[in-house]
């Protein structure tokens, strides 16, 4: 068998290329970014001028930053709640026996295959206030007489972005939950049916405990994904109308490339990284306890 010493040497050899890449392209840039966030960066020469915590002080005292935090939280909370509730409903539905179930299960994954930017363009077209299909259908049904400006109304825009995001991401949640449902014990299920337990009770007593670990994973993973939402905002609203869809990632991008404030952009990015780090630690813990 192998000796301990040679085992760890083999291990280091095997991980060396990957570790070098992650070191050079991950850890070093993070360190550099932290350093940048303490500086004022000249946008042309990239010369640095150390200003300590000034960038952070400016950000934390800016109402726009807190607004973007609020919008990001709203986006995360509503889109994830919606996707989890709909995900449970659809996966329970697709777990029933019906004709063509295999085909439906294959089709359900398709929206997830649509690239994010294409999805954004697609919903831009669907939600167009003058010619979009949604307004056309609503008009045809006689529900409205004039097109609704879905994306330029401050109250609607963020919710429409959540709708577009949900269309694309729901399949992921459904597929993961369906995998979880396969592990529901048939004998337990039959026992509750014999007991005459109602649907609702059956869900909470049989399905929910099985789905719980998967739901927790989805919750954390989707939160981390939702925090980074950028692409869809870039195409649909660019943070508008009146900053009503200015999520934190877009805010950082805007500070960096519109105002050429690289130091400040870095500082916002580091705040996002810390939030992600906390969630990643939670996730790591969770996987441990799942074992």
């Amino acid at each position, binding site marked *: 068998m192998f000796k301990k010493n040679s085992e760890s040497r*083999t291990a280091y050899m095997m991980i060396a290329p*990957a570790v070098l890449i992650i070191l050079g392209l991950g850890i070093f840039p993070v360190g550099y970014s932290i350093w940048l966030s303490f500086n004022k960066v000249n946008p042309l020469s*990239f010369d640095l001028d150390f200003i300590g915590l000034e960038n952070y002080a400016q950000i934390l005292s800016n109402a726009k930053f807190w607004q973007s935090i609020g919008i990001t939280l709203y986006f995360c909370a509503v889109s994830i709640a919606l996707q989890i509730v709909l995900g449970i409903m659809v996966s329970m539905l697709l777990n029933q026996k019906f004709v063509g179930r295999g085909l*439906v299960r294959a089709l359900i994954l398709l929206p997830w295959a649509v690239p994010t930017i*294409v999805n954004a363009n697609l*919903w831009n*077209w669907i939600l167009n206030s003058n010619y979009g299909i949604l307004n056309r259908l609503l008009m045809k049904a006689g529900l409205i007489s004039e097109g609704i400006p879905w994306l330029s109304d401050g109250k609607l825009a963020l919710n429409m972005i959540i709708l577009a995001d949900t*269309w694309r991401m729901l399949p992921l949640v459904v597929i*993961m939950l369906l995998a979880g449902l396969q592990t529901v014990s048939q004998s337990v299920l039959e026992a509750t049916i014999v007991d005459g337990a109602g649907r609702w009770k059956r869900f909470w007593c049989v399905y929910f405990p099985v789905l719980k670990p998967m739901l927790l994973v989805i919750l954390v993973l989707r939160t981390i994904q939702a925090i980074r939402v950028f692409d869809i905002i870039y195409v649909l609203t660019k943070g508008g109308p009146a900053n009503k869809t200015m999520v934190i990632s877009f805010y*950082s991008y805007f500070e960096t490339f519109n105002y050429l404030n690289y130091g400040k952009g870095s500082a916002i990015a580091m705040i996002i990284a810390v939030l992600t780090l906390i969630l990643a630690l939670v996730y790591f813990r969770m996987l441990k306890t799942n074992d």
Partner: protein
Amino acid sequence: MKTRTSRKIKKTAATVLLYLAVIIVLLWTMGPLLWMAVSSIMPGREMLESGTRILPSAVTLERYAVIFGIDGQATQQALVFRRSILNSVIVAGVSTLFSIVFGSVAAYAFSRLMFKGKKALLFVAMFFQLLPPISLLVPYYIMGSRTGMVGHIITLIIIDTNFILAYVIWVMNGYYKSIPRDLEEAGRIDGCTRFGVFWRIIVPTAAPGFVAVGALSFLMAWDEFLYALVFSQSDSAKTIPVAVSEFSTKYGVDYGMMMTSGVVATIIPLLLALFFQRYIVSGLTSGAVKE
């Protein structure tokens, strides 16, 4: 006491409701996708005509001809888009290949061998898989600008490799753990080295895992937008998401081309999702729940 007929009615009603729900889910899933396809062949004037027309009166393939240069009069945008398909195939293909090669070897060490700092390194890999791209954008941009690497697809390949690599390590680590150790013991007794065991026994056994991770990695790189937006500022370096986004932002809005380019950009991921569905589902779920 329920009579037999009322029970029968109840059962029929449940079946009708079940199929109704399935139809609603199908409409929600397929509707936007089909609308994208229909819009791509809809005559331009009918797209921008007020009223409540839903389906086109005629079919036009003009936009596809423009994109693929069949009528010989491709616009500048169409040329950029055509080039972007090639760029995306290269970027996604090469970064997936690198990540799988380096990542699968490293993941083996993580899953089977004992060495110092294993847990910490595994957490670092996971953290970089979860870190929002915006967090590293500024340092990458400054490093790239200083070394003259902005505007080349090689830069995108390097950046994407870093992110996908972390993902591959994370998922393959979980996958290897599900392979019984007895298999390897046999190889070791036969006198294989660690690497020999990995190459002759683990790699063939883990083939489905490689398919899953490979397909998902390719999709991730295909979908990547933020870095591509910043690093592909020259027409020759644009990837599909960037080229697609420009149909709606840079040159004014052309919904017809937005939908046509969207269809083209969706074909490869859609086929991947359909053909490798079972692998993709296992790749999505196995990495997420098992440590």
